[in-house]
């Protein structure tokens, strides 16, 4: 679906923000794009959908360069930016004037999502609170049924119940024909939602693994402070020593996204090389 080949980009020519990025994203997956503030997540997404043009390399969507912004490609892409723009129209008017651009738009799905999000369908969008605008646009984005759905910090501005609704709705909207990418710096918002983690760090893709691969290779555990087991990465916390260790037994452990993210961006010299090795873990 998305193929990024040796892509470099910078807002100034001699200070690249992204360097030689290689990334392939497939249908049927929800990707979580994680990175620190200013790591270039939004920039990567903009390059991906053709809103910014790579200085080197290319971003392809189904084999077509995204920067050409062809209508046939844009019909299959929905990009939900962090900062939204909604016109001074009612939700119904907005849908009447915009839905026609997306061939697979489904009104009944929009109605269902809006109902779940508790967003009124006939009020003026610009009069909504930011959170309601965001929920409306998330619902609209999902109802377009585009093959590629890219969301930049979609949970910013959502209250706690809405974040749970968001995760539920997103999970229900994933199909085999669809590729979803969600960028965030609030890793907990992606818990139980994504199936692949992509970490952007120092202008490059530091990590790109499915949760299945990660649980197969790693164990996330809380160790006693006195435990001297060799770890790939560890942090002290009030509960003890939060650690990532090699999964020697093949036993399942839940991926701690925050710990994984910290490990991938901390400059840990053991975790990332370990993940690049072939996995030899034996099933239990």
């Amino acid at each position, binding site marked *: 679906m998305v193929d990024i080949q040796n892509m470099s980009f910078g807002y100034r020519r001699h200070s690249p923000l992204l360097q030689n990025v290689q990334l392939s994203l497939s249908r049927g997956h929800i990707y979580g794009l994680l990175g620190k503030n200013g790591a270039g997540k939004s920039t990567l997404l903009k390059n991906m959908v053709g809103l910014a043009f790579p200085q080197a390399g290319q971003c392809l969507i189904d084999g077509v360069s995204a920067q050409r*912004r062809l*209508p046939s490609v844009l019909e299959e892409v929905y990009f939900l*930016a962090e900062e939204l*723009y909604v*016109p001074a*129209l009612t939700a119904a*008017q907005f849908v009447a004037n915009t839905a026609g651009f997306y061939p697979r738009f489904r009104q009944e799905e929009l109605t269902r999502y809006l109902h779940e999000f508790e967003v009124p369908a006939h009020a003026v969008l610009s009069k909504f609170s930011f959170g309601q605008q965001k929920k409306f646009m998330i619902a609209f984005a999902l109802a377009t049924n585009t093959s590629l759905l890219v969301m930049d910090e979609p949970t910013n501005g959502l209250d706690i119940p809405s974040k749970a609704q968001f995760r539920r709705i997103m999970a229900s909207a994933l199909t085999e024909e669809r590729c979803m990418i969600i960028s965030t710096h609030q890793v907990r918002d992606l818990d139980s939602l994504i199936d692949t983690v992509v970490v952007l760090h120092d202008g490059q893709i530091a990590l790109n693994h499915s949760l299945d691969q990660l649980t197969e290779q790693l164990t996330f555990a809380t160790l006693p402070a006195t435990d001297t087991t060799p770890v790939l990465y560890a942090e002290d916390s009030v509960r003890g020593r939060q650690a990532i260790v090699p999964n020697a037994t093949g036993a399942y452990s839940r991926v701690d996204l925050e710990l994984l993210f910290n490990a991938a961006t901390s400059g840990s010299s053991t975790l990332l090389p370990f993940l690049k090795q072939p996995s030899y873990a034996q099933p239990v």
Partner: protein
Amino acid sequence: MHNLFSFRRFGRLFRKHTAEHLREYLMGAAVLFGGILVVMLALSLLQGGSMNADVQTIFFVLFLLAAGTFFTSTVFQQFGSKNRAIAALCLPASTLEKYLVGWLYSFMLFLLVYVPVFYLANSIVLLLFNTTDNYHEAVGLFSGEHRPYSAFYIYAVLHAVMLIGAIAFEKAHFVKTAFVFFGILGVLTLLNFQVLKTIFGSELALSFPFNELRFSTTHSFYTVGLPDEQTQWVGLAFAVLTLLFWAAAYARLREKQV
């Protein structure tokens, strides 16, 4: 071809643009009408009678250029701010269709609205100030004597310039474009004048590009210009320039990044 232009998609985009901007455009037309009316009423009041065709033509041209260029500077405002530009650029329509909606509104539709608005305001003023002693007809749009329609050609050039600015700048489009336009015009005039001076000597009067030049010798004063039958080439140069600027605005939109 389907990716370059589709009538169906263009119609949809036109309807969307209209739905999102109709209210502000109607308000703009009302403000324009009010502005023309107030200015022409005030002037008629000051001079104590209705205005003749010459003055009406001047106002027709001035209001056309001022309102038209200002309106054009706003017609691509959806590509200005970051969040609006993202929504506009990601909308599944071709760049040509997005460009043509702006072009159509700011050129064709603006002129179609401007002409009746001006003539309505002008007619009201004439109605109020015409007397048997001081009676003036409304100047004809295609009057051979006053030629108000010739302002459409000037508007086309300025429209093309303003359209580039409307896309190139993210805010304060009108002021920034006018600043750059007059800056470039000033530099070009200066360079043109210096070149002419080296050819014709230091007694050259200030001359503008695409215009005749005047200089004097000890006993004589000369005006050098194109023969009448060749002046149409100057018009053609401006037409080509206009087309180039329109094309440049389209190219700028294609290259627009957020």
